């Protein structure tokens, strides 16, 4: 029973985090977004010179690769710690930025189209993502095919919940700006 639940949520989490990393990587690998990300990273205290701009795309490719690897059975054992490491790194970066008084600056979370800013609420959101990443270690890919009909809707719920959370954070920013 417990192992079935672990499989269900582990695989649902893998599907969701795969989307998260692929989407994030997709934004970073686009040449048109390089200047935007250079600005965002500068806000986090990481200065990237113009001639090192390609490293942003490389980082994007890494995220893409880790995201896809989460869905490939033999690679998940390598991809899971990498994904958890990436998320832990982002969590630490947001926390450090908050400690340095950089709250309110663009977090870079939604690419150039988004405008979510660094805040304690964003840090809490990333803590939830870390929790999901921890579930990756409890599941083996495709261990029980019968569970997949539940895994897909569960990951859809995770995705919808994440999008709602993002939207609530965006709404909160507007409320703070208005009053």
């Amino acid at each position: 029973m417990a192992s079935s639940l672990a499989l269900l949520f582990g695989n649902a989490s893998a599907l969701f985090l795969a989307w998260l990393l692929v989407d994030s990587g997709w934004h970073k690998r686009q040449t048109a977004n390089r200047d935007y990300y250079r600005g965002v990273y500068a806000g986090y205290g990481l200065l990237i010179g113009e001639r090192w701009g390609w490293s942003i795309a490389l980082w994007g490719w890494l995220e893409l690769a880790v995201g896809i690897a989460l869905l490939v059975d033999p690679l998940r054992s390598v991809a899971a710690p990498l994904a958890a490491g990436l998320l832990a790194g982002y969590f630490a970066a947001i926390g450090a930025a908050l400690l340095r008084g950089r709250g309110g600056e663009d977090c870079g979370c939604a690419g150039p189209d988004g405008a979510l800013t660094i805040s304690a609420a964003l840090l809490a959101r990333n803590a939830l993502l870390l929790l999901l990443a921890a579930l990756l270690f409890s599941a083996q890919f495709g261990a029980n095919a019968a569970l997949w009909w539940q895994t897909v809707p569960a990951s859809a719920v995770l995705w919808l919940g994440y999008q709602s959370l993002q939207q609530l954070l965006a709404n909160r920013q507007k409320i703070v700006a208005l009053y």
Partner: protein
Amino acid sequence: MDFLLLSNIALWILVVLLSVAVYALTRQVGVLFERVAPAGALSVNKQLEVGQAAPAMSLATLDSKLVEIAGSRASGKSQLLFFVSPDCPICKTLLPALTSAARAERDWLELVLASDGAEQDHNGYVKRFNLQSFPYVVSEILGQSYGVAKLPYAVVVDEAGKVASMGIINSREHLDSLFEAKERGLASIQDYFNPPSTAADSGELFTEVTAKGTQP
């Protein structure tokens, strides 16, 4: 299929549908914030700048009284110069809101209606819209001195005789934005939401805040 399996399927469908509904609601709230956000008055004036001394003058009203525009006034109140014209349709729709706002803010604000064009029926206009309780000035020089190019236009002059805020007014919200800008000590309400460095680029009150995408 046994009952547990069927109920499990039904519950999953329900959970997904509920999640969709929650997401749709959060999106709608976001869209509402975009729509109901206070719209700032469009501040276009090549002659005056916020913070500079407003041109002071004494002018005769329609009922032959003298009214002091800007400068030092005995009342010590701020002044709202509202430029209208009898042939301006938007001015007509705004007058009820304007007079209501002027009454609501009378503790700190005096409304002066300004127009030009001697050939126009200003007296009839004042009677038709019950504007007798507010000074109504017909002066071309006043409009020119305040750089009024389009109507309806409003200028808030503070107690010290300086321009506090100004802009083209198309709604009660625009009018309120002038008061809000004065209260906050900003040139316009746009400056509050988009500080000057970014406002100049976008020219919009809000940059759209969407919630998509992922990590830094």
